[in-house]
């Protein structure tokens, strides 16, 4: 079976499992709505310019939503020893890593798409910058790569709920900074030229951590 067909089969299975339980998308969307709602009360209107505040709030919320999703996507494989089932299939362990990263990415992306209109209403955003169509997937993919790897790493630890944020947040700082800066520039209407350098930061970040994940995932899940 080809590499990509195996990946597609695992992703399709993850989507089917989620469709049955709706655990990730429903609970994480609810979490995002709550966060946005609370942030709206936390900042007094007019004290901080919207284009300064909104990108930080947006990515802070998405990062925490991601953390909830990554843990769940990986822990699904722990019930009934399903991770062993995947590891017994005739493919390299990197197939599991890529498939789980894509599943995590898709779940977080769906939550982001659901919550963006709510975000726009609460923070009074009058337009949707087209640059976000590139910024959001790139940053989300970068966070998903590290999130999946670290969720697998912390899967068998006693304090896994605490371990994931402790390990994840310092590592995603570069991609979150790039996402916040580029989102801010896009919301200010500064155009592609101001966004482009940050896009490159995210692309390089995604490539570097994808390679690291492919090289290390095997050892992470086997031990």
């Amino acid at each position, binding site marked *: *079976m080809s590499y990509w*067909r*195996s990946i597609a*089969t*695992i992703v399709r*299975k993850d989507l*089917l*499992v989620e469709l*049955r*339980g709706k655990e990730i998308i429903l609970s994480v969307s609810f979490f995002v709505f709550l966060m946005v709602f609370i942030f709206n009360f936390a900042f007094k209107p007019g004290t901080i310019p919207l284009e300064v505040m909104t990108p930080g709030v947006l990515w802070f919320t998405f990062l925490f939503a991601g953390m909830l999703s990554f843990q769940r996507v990986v822990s*699904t494989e722990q*019930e*009934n*020893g*399903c991770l*062993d*089932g*995947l*590891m*017994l*299939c*005739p*493919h*390299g362990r990197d197939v599991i890593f890529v498939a789980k990263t894509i599943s995590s990415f898709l779940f977080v992306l769906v939550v982001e798409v659901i919550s963006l209109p709510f975000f726009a209403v609460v923070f009074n955003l009058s337009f949707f910058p087209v640059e976000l169509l590139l910024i959001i997937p790139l940053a989300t993919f970068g966070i998903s790569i590290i999130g999946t790897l670290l969720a697998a790493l912390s899967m068998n630890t006693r304090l896994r709920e605490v371990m994931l944020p402790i390990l994840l947040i310092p590592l995603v700082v570069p991609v979150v900074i790039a996402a916040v800066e580029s989102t801010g520039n896009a919301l200010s209407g500064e155009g592609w030229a101001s966004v482009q350098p940050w896009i490159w930061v995210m692309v390089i970040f995604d490539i570097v951590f994808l390679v690291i994940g492919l090289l290390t995932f095997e050892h992470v899940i*086997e031990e």
Partner: protein
Amino acid sequence: MEHPAIEARGLSRSYGRVKAISNLGLTIAPGEKVVLIGPNGSGKTTLIKLLSTLIRPTSGTLKLFGKDTASHGAQLRRRVGVLLHEPLLYNRLTALENLQFYSKMFNVPNEDRRIWELAEEMEIGDLLKTRVDSLSHGQRKRVSILRALLHDPPILLLDEPDAGLDQTAVQGLVKLVSRNGRTVVMSTHNLESGLSMAQRVIVLKKGKVIMDVDREVLDGANLDLGYEALVTG
């Protein structure tokens, strides 16, 4: 010359300071049916997991059909069917959806026909459309046995397959796994069901082989006593 189905040399596996398998040597011919017995903690499950390539040896070499598992793991997994303690089935999917998923992963041709044929043979056709979380332990075990057989593997590794199965199901299992000249390695605490299938009996203790004999050599009537003496002595 035909390669052994399984060939282990100096195989060891440690978990921290604990040696689960220690310097184990083992050769199993194609088509041979081997039963692994031993007390709890003797290394049966670790050995099954090593043979299935689920875990790597700490030291030593392991070859399946002459190919090293360290360098040909993915390729060799296609030729191995594994039944572990846990069913390896997704709770929220039906038995059929689980089996279709594994069929795709193993690229089983005519997957639905294969699933239904095996299900009829194992008399679990009526369970296929039930969600796994609604199945009993024994039913999950039977679906899991079907999962292990889906891709018609020449090597079948069974870790206590009789646990949680009724007598009829155990007899059916023995019949099913014994055919097709398949190599079978089965660990069990149930000497009776183990011996009904085995051609060779290996007794493990503290990660080492302490007895390796042909089934015919054993006197079934006194085996319980002999086994007790062997593993406690």
